[in-house]
């Protein structure tokens, strides 16, 4: 049965209509027109639909919207936090077609909020963390370089 569901998205309180199996991604795209949330597999396997829920990156395509209780942030909602990252993406060739990019940006923003664990090198850490976000265009060099560059700058 369709129901009203309250969500907090990009800082705003919204009410959407959901079925039990409506995904968060569909709600964001179709009802809230937040189309930075891309659907490339709808199976939780590629990362194109990555959003932050309570700050943690999640695959919104397989997340039942009704089970979301915390703040949702999409690429549109990253605001200034993403500015230097976007510029680094552009300078390092981190995107080509751009279809995976908003998911990468969201995930990268979350990575940059974290402390680098002790004894871990930055580049392999970033490569591991971004492994849930497929990019078929770039070969990942640019993405990894951009995230590392911003991490160094912000330090």
């Amino acid at each position: 049965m369709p129901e009203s569901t309250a969500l907090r998205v990009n800082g705003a309180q919204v009410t959407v209509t959901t079925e039990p199996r409506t995904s968060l991604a569909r709600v964001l795209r179709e009802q809230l027109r937040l189309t930075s949330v891309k659907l490339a597999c709808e199976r939780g396997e590629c990362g194109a639909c990555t959003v932050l829920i309570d700050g943690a990156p999640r695959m919104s395509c397989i997340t039942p919207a009704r089970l979301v209780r915390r703040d949702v942030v999409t690429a549109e909602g990253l605001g200034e936090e993403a500015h230097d990252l976007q510029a680094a993406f552009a300078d390092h060739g981190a995107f080509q077609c751009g279809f995976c990019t908003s998911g990468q940006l969201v995930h990268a923003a979350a990575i940059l909020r974290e402390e680098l664990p002790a004894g871990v090198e930055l580049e392999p850490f970033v490569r591991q963390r971004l492994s849930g976000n497929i990019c078929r265009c770039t070969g990942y060099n640019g993405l990894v370089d951009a995230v590392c560059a911003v991490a160094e700058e912000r330090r």
Partner: protein
Amino acid sequence: MSIGDRIRPIDWRERSRGTVDYAADLAAPAHLHAAVLRSPHPYARLLELDVGRAERMPGVRAVLTHRDFPPDALYVHRGGPLSDRPPLARDVVRNVGQEIVAVAADTREQAEAACRAVRVRYRPLRAPLTIAAALAPGARALHVRTTGERNVAVRWTADWGDVAAGRAAAVHTVEGSFVYPSVSHAVMEPNTTLAAWDAEREVLELWTSTQSPWFIVKEVAHLLGLSREQVICREVAVGGGFGAKSKISEHEVLAAALARKAGTPVLLALTREEEFAANKPRHRFETHLRTSADADGRLRLFEADIRVDNGAYNHMGSSVMRVGVITLGSMYRPDGVSFDARLVDTATQAGGQFRGYGTPQVSLAVESQVDELAERLGIDPIELRLRNLGAEWTTTLCGYEVTTNRLGACLEAVRDGLDWNGRRADRTPGRGLGVAVGMHGSGAYAYEFANRADAAVDVYENGGVRVRFGGADAGTGQRTILAQVAAHELGVDPADVDVLSMDGEQTPFDLGAWSSRGTHMTGSSVGQAARELAEKLKDLAREKLGPGDVVLAGGHAVRGEGSVSLGDLVRLSPDSRDGVLSHETSYVLEGTEMLTPDRDTANLSPTYAFAAHGAEVQVDRRTGKVTVLDYVAAHDVGQAINPTLVEGQITGGAAMGIGAALGEEIVREGGRVVNSAYVNYALPRSADLPRIRPVIVGGSDPAGPYGAKSVGEMSIIPPGAAIVNAIYDAVGVRIRELPATPDKILAALAEQEGRVRRFGLWRRPDRWWVALVRWAYPRGLHHVLHRWGTGFGPGVGPRPDEADAAVPAEELVVADTVSAATAALAAGGVVVGGGTDVLTEARLHPSRPSRLVSVAELTELRVLRWRDDGGVEIGAAVTLAELATELAASAPAVAAAVRTIASPQIRNAATVGGNLVQEKRCWFFRNGFPCYKRNGATSPCYALLGDHRFQHAAVGAHRCQAVTPSDLATVLLAYDAEVVIAGTAGRRTVSLADFYTGPGETVLGPTDVVVRLCVPAAALRRRGAFEKLALYTGDFSTASVALTAAIDDEGGWTDVRLVLGAVAPTPWRLTTVERAVDGTVPRVAELRRLVDAELDRHGHPLPGNVWKLDAVAGLAETAAERLLTTEGVLR
């Protein structure tokens, strides 16, 4: 000056934020959504097609069948007798996935339901599924072909040069058969079209994911009986092409016809499964090659027999085959080339255009054999290639008129970049270096008008500039390149240049971005348009500033001290319209030639690009896993117009080529694609690749625009051979069939080392029945079960008649106590934990329970608690990410195991309980096969005859060959974990060892809920290690090992647990080995011997997964080593 600058992509802000619109983003709520009914059979006659019920389904607005097209409607494709594909199947289907009916409805779900309500009756025909089967005597023909040979669509044979001289000069000859399989583009944006029909104007508008709108317009107009002027593509962002979107697919015409029929705009977006299983992948090439050289290492002769898998229809197979074959006569300068090539029809999805277009396939063979000859001759592989380079400004055997050629410099760059000589002199075991070279044109003269491109440039009164071109940029950065070109000619900042592409009303003629022609053709046309416009502007400026030299710079025309802005010049010009001065021009390329039926050599391209790639790999002799440690890709691109974009093309293509070398392939069973999901498709994730190091060797080609040559396709050509050559250098195993997956390498190493396993089945009566069934499968049992047995089962997916039956109202219960959860389950329903599987399962197998019971918010299940005795209780709804953090210090092996599971995003959602109870991952079971476990006892297990190399059991399987996929189960079993279960009758505790009853099957009853896991303190005091072999970062285990032991000060082991994952139906403890090493200070070799003995005693592998026993034994060695040497944490 902006040529050669690292300009940011022109729309970088929007594109990086995700706010540019791709076709699916434009769908409005009022638009319709389409779905396609596809053939489930590889080859069948259609006896009946009735869409009556589908038309009456709720929400349905239009249903399309072949009757909506003229009876002889075919795609044009290559034209003439090669046209063979109808837009929708008429009386016969020739591949699983062929389009039969298309439906537009208010929602995608309604359209899919209507597809299921279509009644189709098929008479299956014997289907030739492989090249060998199609060419076998007695094979059934798929089409009537003009070659006169059954299932041969095109045959091309020729001798080039002096074959006899080559033969006479040959001193060393190597010969072998190479396979480059069918691989998927796996573009991130699925192919998508939004179509709108304006009935009043009789105009069709399309927003479609394409690299070349011209071809879309041509085919759509042709099939819908419209003029080309009536079909208008509009600009839209395109999410990756790589060839997949360079010609028509099927969604464009279907969306267009549905929109016209329904009178409402229609969105047709392929699902990821359709993208893998029904779109057009790379053509599989089977290349038998003989290469001969003389004693000095000069290549003298190539002789090839090439068979290309066309799939069920001619798409671009004929030209892909030609371009592939041309490789033999392009790069080197042998005396002669002799070939016999056949394009073979098989009842599989048609092959299509894919970056490299046949060249990577043939290059694999050529470049492997050049290495084989180098070894034979005792010459360094780079040196041998340098000796055989073609010269600049010469004509090759295949008719290419090469201009500049800096391949020598590329090879030197690889030699320096990899420290080739140093590393080859100083060998590390298991490491090896490989090199391969390649060549590719810059736009082939493959069609009429392919040598022409038009472009327009506008200057506005505000000084802004706009480029208009009719091609499309699927992500290569072509729009940015064109902005740079226009900026360069007009003396403005590239940031002030706007680019409009692919608009049928506003952009001039251009065949689009394929065959690496974007920069050459459109770069030339835009350059010419901007140059001619610049002259006009200068003339205008002279009127104002006086005669003499005028330069355009900084948005102004400057003459000496005087200057006038471009905007003012626009105002001055009598040719300006509405404040815009426009100039359109046509660039025609001279000197290139087409291949025609009566000539088999031609100068297809204006310039040719070259590259040399070098790889350093590490081969794990224990598992067969190849890791690329270093990769240098040196390219002769002439002048790089934007080095950042060029490097992006190099690294992206190299990554894709490495993927194909090491993991990617489309796997089919009975003609149906088995691995139609990213999870089953081993394309590289970021941690799977090293930093790829692009090198642009510099140069400038007089025949290219601004000195530029192509790059987009070049980069995917050398990786295949570079990697297999490096593998050979590392371990002496020559892989001739890609991908070089661990199974092939480990099997070859076993042969090399003379290792054979004997399982002594004759003395194991408990396996006799299984052995008998396995014997009977290929002898008819599989066929009977598949053809007739499956009919007795309920089928896979929703019932056709369920489509319009009242679907029970769905319900999502969020339980707040455990007893509420069990009570809710008692009324029917399934548990949802992290919810990572439930939506996918519902979409693919929507025989849905109507009630979902979420337990993720149960406070009791969310707790992770340390007991006073040092043990730990882990709530079932604790996420994997939380678990990894909590146990990082106390049980690092568990944390390490968890970090190998899926992706960070999944680990943030997936729960411990959900991971343990997840269903098997067998790709037949998951991806739509009506197997025994899905469809009941009369159905076959598809893994027995299908591809079972990676995720099926090699020990102890019965009718189902699947394994328990949970790595957590494997590792926690080594920590003596217990599971607390709540049911309607109360709580009980079972040891994890007793928890599993079969592959991904547990003791849980329908109303049971996992509450928590308990790990005793004693286990946490032991040292642990977890080792896993997976095909890519985050994949499910192909094999895994968890090992724990209490180790005393002298190094003695007690309390040992050794658990093998993914080799038996359930995690398997090797208690015999545990006992044998208990109380000893074990040596790695001894442990391996014990493990091997157990594997031989219990193993009952399938033909394709014997190697897994070696792999898992190898992992056990590595795990033991970790326990003995370090604190036992995986990297």
